[in-house]
C-alpha cells in the first residue's frame, strides 16, 4: 500500500477507505462514524480537535517513515494525553478481552495438553502488556500532565516532580517479543484444529493487535517523548 500523507482537505471517509488502520483512530479522537462527506478539517472543527494535531498523529500512525519534527512546537499536550489514554482504554476494554475470549474458545476446540500451557503463556503476555499500560497511565502520563499544567500556570517548579521522560524512554521496552512467539506457535506448531476459522480469526486479531501496538509505540517515541523533552527544557 502506498503511503498516504493526510491533509485537512481530504474527506475522512476516503482516508479510512485508503487505509483501514485509520479506523481504530476515530474513537481515540472521540470521532464517531457516520460523518458523511465531511473533510478532516470540518470534522476536527466540529469536535474541537486541533486539525494540525490530528493530521500529525494520523500520519505518524499510518506511516513509519513520517518524521514530524518541525511541527511539534505548540502541540496541545492535553490533547495528546487524551489520545494516548483513549488508545489504552481501547486495548484494555476492547482488544484484550476479545483476544482472551478467542483464546479461550481456541483452547476448548483443541484437545491437546499444550493448550493449557499456551493459555498460561498468553496470560503472562497480557499481564506484561497491562503492566506496561498501567505504568504509563499511572506514572508517565500524570507526570506529563503535571508538567504541562505547571508551564501553563507559569509556575515552573519541576523540583516537585521526581521523574523525567528519560526514565520513560528506558522503560519503553519491547512487549512485542512474546506476541511474535505466540504467532509462530499458532502458525507453525499447533496441530490442525477442528475449528480452522477460529484459529485464523485468532491469528488475525493477534497480528492486528501487534500492528496497532507498533504504531502506538511510534506515536510515543516520535511525538510524546520529544514534546516532553521540549517541556522539560523550558522548565530547567
Amino acid at each position, binding site marked *: 500500500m502506498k503511503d498516504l500523507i493526510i491533509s485537512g482537505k481530504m474527506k475522512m471517509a476516503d482516508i479510512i477507505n485508503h487505509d483501514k488502520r485509520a479506523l481504530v483512530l476515530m474513537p481515540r479522537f472521540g470521532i464517531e462514524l457516520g460523518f458523511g462527506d465531511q473533510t478532516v478539517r470540518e470534522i476536527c472543527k466540529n469536535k474541537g480537535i486541533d486539525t494540525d494535531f490530528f493530521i500529525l498523529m494520523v500520519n505518524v500512525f499510518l506511516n513509519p517513515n513520517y518524521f514530524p519534527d518541525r511541527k511539534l512546537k505548540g502541540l496541545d499536550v492535553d490533547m495528546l494525553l487524551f489520545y494516548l489514554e483513549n488508545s489504552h482504554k481501547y486495548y484494555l476494554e476492547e482488544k484484550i478481552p476479545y483476544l482472551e475470549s478467542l483464546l479461550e474458545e481456541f483452547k476448548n476446540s483443541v484437545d491437546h495438553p499444550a493448550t493449557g500451557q499456551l493459555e*498460561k*503463556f498468553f496470560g503472562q503476555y497480557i499481564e506484561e502488556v497491562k503492566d506496561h499500560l498501567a505504568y504509563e497511565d499511572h506514572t508517565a502520563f500524570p507526570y506529563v500532565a503535571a508538567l504541562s499544567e505547571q508551564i501553563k500556570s507559569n509556575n515552573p517548579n519541576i523540583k516537585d516532580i521526581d521523574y523525567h521522560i528519560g526514565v520513560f524512554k528506558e522503560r519503553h521496552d519491547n512487549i512485542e517479543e*512474546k506476541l511474535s512467539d505466540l504467532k509462530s506457535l499458532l502458525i507453525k506448531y499447533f496441530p490442525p484444529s477442528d475449528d480452522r476459522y477460529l484459529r485464523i480469526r485468532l491469528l488475525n486479531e493477534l497480528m492486528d493487535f501487534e500492528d496497532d501496538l507498533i504504531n502506538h509505540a511510534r506515536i510515543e517515541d516520535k511525538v510524546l517523548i520529544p514534546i516532553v523533552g521540549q517541556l522539560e527544557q523550558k522548565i530547567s
Partner: protein
Amino acid sequence: MGKSLIIAEQSEIIRKGLVYIAEAVGLFNAIREVACASALNELIERFKPDVLIINPGMVSIESLETLKELNDGSMKIAAMVYALFDDELMSRFDEVIMVSDTRNKIQKKIYSLIDKTPAGKQKKPEEALSNRELDVLKLLVKGLSNKEISDKLFISTHTVISHRKNITRKLNIKSVAGLTVYAILNELISIEEVQ
C-alpha cells in the same frame, strides 16, 4: 513392522536366488518379482516397497532418477550386478550387490539398506533442531539457567548461549514460555515436568 521388497531382474535363476537369500533375512513380509522394466513403475506405485533390487541393465540414469522420486523418495534402490556398467550410473544406487557376493554379504547389504530407511524417510528439514539443541531446549523449559544447563551437559555457558540462539533462530520462538509450549507440542517434555 514387516518391510516389502521388489526384485526386478530378467534372469530367472538370479531372481529366484535373490528371493531365496532375501527371504532368509527375515525382515520382509512381502517380496515381489518382476522380469521386465515396463511394469515396474506401476508395481512400485501399488506396493510401495521399502527396497528395490534391480538389474542396472533395466534402467538409464534418467529412469533411475524417476524411480527415486516414486514412493515419496523413501525407497532404497540396490543394483544387482553381474556385468560391467557405467560408473556414473552405478554411483546413483544406494547399494551394489555383486553376483560374486556370498549369501552372508548380500544379506548384510540388504540389512544396511533397511537400516538406512528410517533416517531416509525422516529426511530432516533444514530447520530441525540438532540432538544437542534438543537437550538444551529440554533443560531450558524445565526452568534451568544457562549455568545449570552447562554443568549438566558438560559444555561451556558460551556454548549453551549459542545453542539457544540457534534454537530461537530455527523455531522463531524467543521466550522460554513460548519454547515450553513448543516442547509440549512436540512431546519433548510432559506437562508434569513443567512447573
